[in-house]
C-alpha cells in the first residue's frame, strides 16, 4: 500500500485568507483525489487530480474556490481560497492503488475563524 503524508496536519485560519494543503505519496500514482470530511459527516469527493491534466471537480465544487495542482506523479496540492467558517473541515488526500483501492492520507484539519 502507498504511504501518504499531508502538510499541514492542522491549521487555524482567518476568514478571507487561503490555505494550500500538500499531499506527498511514496510511489508514483496516476490518480489522486481530494475529499472533504465535515464535522460528524462522511467523505465528499472534491476533485480528481491526474498528472498532466486539469483536475475534474465534482458537483458543488469549483476551481476558483479549490484550485488543485498536480505537477508530478507523487505530489499534489489543494488550495482552499477565500475561506469562510463553512470551510472548516478535514481535507483528505487519497490515491488509487492501481487495483481499484484507495488509500488515504492522515488529513488536514482546518478551522476557519
Amino acid at each position, binding site marked *: *500500500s502507498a504511504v501518504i503524508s499531508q502538510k499541514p496536519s492542522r491549521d487555524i485560519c482567518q476568514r478571507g485568507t487561503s490555505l494550500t494543503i500538500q499531499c506527498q505519496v511514496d510511489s508514483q500514482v496516476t490518480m489522486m*483525489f481530494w475529499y472533504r470530511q465535515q464535522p460528524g459527516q*462522511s467523505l465528499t469527493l472534491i476533485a480528481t487530480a491526474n498528472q498532466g491534466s486539469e483536475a475534474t471537480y465534482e458537483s458543488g465544487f469549483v476551481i476558483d474556490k479549490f484550485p488543485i495542482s498536480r505537477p508530478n506523479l507523487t505530489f499534489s496540492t489543494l488550495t482552499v481560497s477565500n475561506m469562510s467558517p463553512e470551510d472548516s473541515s478535514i481535507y483528505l488526500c487519497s490515491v488509487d492503488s492501481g487495483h481499484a483501492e484507495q488509500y488515504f492520507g492522515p488529513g488536514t484539519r482546518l478551522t476557519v475563524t
Partner: protein
Amino acid sequence: AQSVSQHNHHVILSEAASLELGCNYSYGGTVNLFWYVQYPGQHLQLLLKYFSGDPLVKGIKGFEAEFIKSKFSFNLRKPSVQWSDTAEYFCAVNPYGQNFVFGPGTRLSVLP
C-alpha cells in the same frame, strides 16, 4: 439519486458482543465494495473489499462482510468485538468507471 446508506448512526456494544453494521447502495450496475475504518485520531484504513467471486469476504482484525446482490447490501460483521474496535466505520461503493461514494458512517462504541 444514487447513494450509499448505513443503517445505524451510532452503535454501542459490550465487549464480546456480536456486531453487524448494515450498508445498502442504490447503484444497479457492477460495483466494487469496501469497508473503511477510522480509529480515533487516525486516518482511514481499508478493512476489507469485494470485487467479485465469493460474496463472503474476510478482512483484517476478524471482520467479514457479505455481499448480497439481490438486496444491494454489503453488511459488515464480527463475531466478538473488542474495546479496540471502537471507531467510525464507513461503507464505500465504487461503481464501475465512476468515483467512490461513501456512506455516512457508523460510530461504534465498545464498552469494556
